[in-house]
Structures are given as C-alpha cells and as structure tokens.
C-alpha cells in the first residue's frame, strides 16, 4: 500500500481537495459520496462498514438457531422479527458501502473467502435459550454502545444508516433483558439457565470493543477522521457502567471478581478479558468460526441458481418488452 499522504499531494488540484476535506473534518461536517475524499479514508470506511454489515448477517445465525425451538409463540415472533431486523441492518450497511464504490456481491465474496472479518462475538455458540436473552442484553447492548457515537460519524451515509439501526438495536436489547428477567424469576432450572448464560457471554461481550487502547492499530487515524469518537477502553467502560446496575435489576451476577464501584473515578472497576482467547477467536480458532462461515457459503452457493434465474427472467422480460414496443 502506498502512503496516501504522498501520492495525493502530487497534484496541486489534489492539495486543494485535501484542504477542503480537512476543513470539513475540522468543522465536523458530513462527507457525502459526491465529495472528494482521500483513498485511505475511503478504504478505512469500506473496511469498517463491510465488517459491520458482515457482522449483522453472520449474527443472524446464533439467534436463528433458536427460532424453531422458541418456548412460546410470543417469544418466537419477537425472535423472528429480530433476526429479520438484522438482515435489514445488513442491507442498509451494504448500501452504505455501495456509495463508496464497492458492491454487495464483491463484499460477500470477500467475507466468504475469509478476507474480511465480522465481529468475533458470533463465533460463540448459542447452546441454551437463555443465550438468546444474553445476546440481546449484552451483545446488542455492546453494539449500541459502539454504534450510538457512529450516528455522528463523518461519513453521511454510514451515520444515517446507524441512526436507523440504533433505534432497532435498543429494542433488541430490551427484549433480551426481558427474556433474562423472566427466566431469572422463573423455575430453578430457568434461573440456572439464565445465570450460566450470562457467565458465558460477559467476557466475550467486553471483548467486542476490541483490544486495549495501548494495542489498537486503527484507532488513532479513525479518531482524527471523526469516524471513531471514543477509544475502545472508553466504550468498554461505558458499557460496564451500563450493565452493572442492569444485572442487579435482573438479580443475576456478573462473573468478574474485580467488579467494584470506584468513587474516585466515578466508574466501575472491572477485570481484564482473556486477550489470548480473543486473539485465538480472531485467528479463526473460536468454537464456531468454521461453522458460521460454512453456513454463509452454503446459503450463498445454494442460492446461486435462484439469483441466476432472477437475472435471466429480468433479462427476458426486458427483451420481450423491447420486442413488443
């Protein structure tokens, strides 16, 4: 990769564009698809939006896993609607990426080839019904914490997609909380199921904010571009501060002996996630990495003849219309 700073400074016209772009960023204005933008900014956004879109659609799997076993018709309806929302989020985000000149098909290929990532959290399995609750509460909760600041992201189409998405994510979080709340007040078996699930999802949900600031590779430049507004560690703290009182309301405990209110900092202290586990899952060795990707590839490959048929029919229809005209 060449340094975008040097090749863009080569032409006086580019220098003027770069100054205009820098000025817009400095004034916290929105960059729109028609505006000139540095290649590195475009690449960073494509990478981030694609990863986000992929996360939405891979995220359909762990929860979809419980649709056919949902224990009441009301919960089943809510879960179908949630998984449907995630497909919709994927659609908005792939459209946002398209405004940067990269199509959905291309991004899906990169996902299927393992060349673009999705959120590692979805490489953990949903082994009990309570996991649907824990995902809603913790995973959607962490996603909201990450995404609310993105509603003010410097790239207009991404920021607007996030506004719509965040509204729905907050529903998801409430629904997840409600599942756990009901289980925590249910039979002994249900209560155990809820606690066991929270014990499993707590640490992975803290990892969703990425590595500690001291080791984060992309953060600084993204902050300078107003893509990222808060550091990984700031967001993680914000999330912990949110879930501790919620766990108390649920009557469930969090599996973190270091959790304690710090009057001095005005925040909760908390423990350190197992970053080795994080790296292992990131490298593809989590419990479900292969399964999730295989599921995606299979759905895509099995759908190839359907998409092909739709294209062929559209072409034939156009030809017939032309012939009739």
């Amino acid at each position, binding site marked *: 990769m060449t340094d975008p700073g040097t090749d863009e400074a080569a032409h006086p016209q580019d220098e003027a564009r770069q100054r205009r772009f820098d000025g817009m960023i400095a004034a916290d204005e929105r960059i729109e698809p028609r505006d000139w933008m540095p290649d590195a900014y475009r690449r960073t956004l494509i990478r981030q939006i694609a990863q986000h879109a992929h996360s939405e659609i891979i995220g359909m799997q762990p929860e979809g896993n419980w649709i056919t076993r949902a224990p009441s018709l009301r919960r089943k309806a809510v879960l179908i609607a949630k998984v449907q929302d995630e497909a919709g989020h994927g659609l908005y985000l792939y459209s946002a990426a398209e405004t940067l000149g990269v199509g959905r098909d291309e991004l899906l290929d990169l996902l299927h080839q393992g060349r673009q990532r999705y959120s590692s959290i979805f490489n953990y399995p949903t082994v009990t019904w309570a996991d649907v609750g824990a995902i809603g509460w913790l995973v959607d909760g962490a996603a909201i914490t990450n995404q609310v600041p993105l509603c003010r992201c410097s790239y207009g189409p991404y920021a607007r997609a996030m506004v719509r998405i965040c509204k729905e994510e907050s529903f998801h979080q409430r629904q997840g909380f409600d599942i756990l709340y009901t289980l925590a007040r249910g039979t002994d078996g249900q209560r155990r199921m809820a606690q066991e699930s929270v014990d499993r999802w707590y640490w992975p949900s803290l990892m969703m904010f990425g590595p500690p600031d001291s080791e984060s590779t992309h953060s600084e430049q993204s902050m300078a571009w107003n893509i990222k507004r808060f550091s990984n560690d700031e967001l993680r703290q914000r999330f912990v501060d949110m879930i501790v009182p919620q766990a108390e309301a649920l009557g469930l405990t969090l599996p973190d002996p270091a959790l304690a209110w710090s009057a001095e900092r005005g925040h909760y202290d908390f423990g350190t996630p197992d970053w080795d586990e994080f790296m292992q899952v990131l490298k593809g060795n989590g419990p479900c990495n292969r399964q999730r990707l295989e599921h995606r590839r299979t759905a895509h490959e099995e759908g190839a003849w359907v998409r092909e048929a739709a294209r*062929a029919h559209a072409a034939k229809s156009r030809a017939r219309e032309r012939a009739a005209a």
Partner: protein
Amino acid sequence: MSGRENGSASAERDTALAAYALRLGDDALVASHRLAELAARGPQLEEDVALANISLDLLGQARSLLTYAGSLEERLTGVLRTEDDLAYLRDEDQFANCRLVELPNTDFAFTVARQFLFSAYQFELYTALAGSADGTLAGIAGKAVKEVAYHRDHASGWTVRLGDGTEESSERMAAALEAAWPYTGELFASDPVFRAVAGAGFGADPPELRPAWDAFVDGVLAEAGLARPEVPPITGPAGMGGRQGVHTEAFGYLLAEMQHLHRSHPGAAW
C-alpha cells in the same frame, strides 16, 4: 324453540367453530414454522427479509386463531387452553393442519411452490371469511387477507421468475410443483366440521374455494410457462389426512423440535 334446544344447537356450533379455528390456526402455525426454519438461509438478503415477513404474518394469524379456538373450547368444557398450550402441548395426532404446510423445505423452488399453492388457498379462504357471520373470525380474516395478498404476490412472482428463468430453475420449479400438488386435494376436501360452519354462515366449505383458486393458479402457471401438474391427490389411510390428525412422517420431527424446550420445563412461564 326451547332454551334447551337452543343451548345444544349453539354448543354444536361452538364445537364445530372451535375445530374450524383450530384447523385454520394449525395451518398458519405450521406454515410459519417451515418458513422460519429458513432464517439466514435465503438465496439473498432480500429473501431472508421477505420469508421472515411472511412467517411472522402467519404466526400472528396462528396466534389469533389458536387463542380464539381455546376460548371457544373453554365455553364448552370450562377448561382454558392458551395459544401456547395448543401449540406446545398437543401431540401429533391432535394437530389438524393440512399436510401441504408441513412438507419440508427441500430446496428454494419447493418452498416457493408450497407457499404459492397455500397462499392462493388462504387468499380465497380469508376473502370468504371476511364476511363471516362470526365477528371474531371476520375480524381475523379481514386483517389476514391483506397480508396473504402480499404472500400470494411474492410467491407468484418467484414462481414466474423460476419458471421463466433458466433451464435449471424451470426444471426445479416444475419438479417442486409436481411434488406439492398431490397435497392440494386436501385443501378442498369437505367434512362435517366444514359443512357445519359453512351451514351456520361462519366458515367456508372448502370445495367452494376451488374454482377461484384454480383460476388464479392456472393464470400464474401460464405466465411462468409451467404446466399444471397431472398428478392425482394423495390419499390417506381410510381417507384420513391432516385434518383428522394423520400427518406425514416429517411432521413428528417438526413438533419434536418446536415443542422440546417448552415441554422440558413443565408449567414454566417464558
């Protein structure tokens, strides 16, 4: 008429109406379930959204119909079964859905074929029921018919796309229709329950729905360049089928999966 005769006549009507609501509710419940199995497995994201949409509409219909069936039953027996009692605590032979809706998703063409034939049936059914003398059924059907009009459009669109698209898609669509077709006979078979609700002005006698269904289906098949399958309806043991609780082998697995968690925690609230 004496009060006593009045009472027993209305009890008979309620019995037939409860059985009728249960049949319609089971149809919608099982059709919804099969579509829900496809979550995150669609050929493209738009289809994941659309199939979930249809599944949700059908589940909504099922919940209204099962709740209504339960309340009619309570009037007769004094025992209330909720929508969840009916969905999760009945055994296979107590389900009264037609067999068409329980057939597994073997490929996308089959899902389309099943949904196309079933939505076209539900459309005629709910259109008729929107004018039911029973206010509750009329209300449910009046809302559902708008949803089903979209389901029917969606499935018809795919039937045409696949029928007209490529050689492979056209072959798959023809094979899917041929596999689903024998189960459509059951949609239009009458029996004493259907005749009782039709006689009371509450429901539709299925044979009456057939001409409009035929006309619609034939129209779409013609547009898709597909032939109407020449296969006889499936028969059941002693003429019994889904409405009498005699289902396909695949149905037991569907229920095992659907009911397992609920039944593992007796009496629990979710």
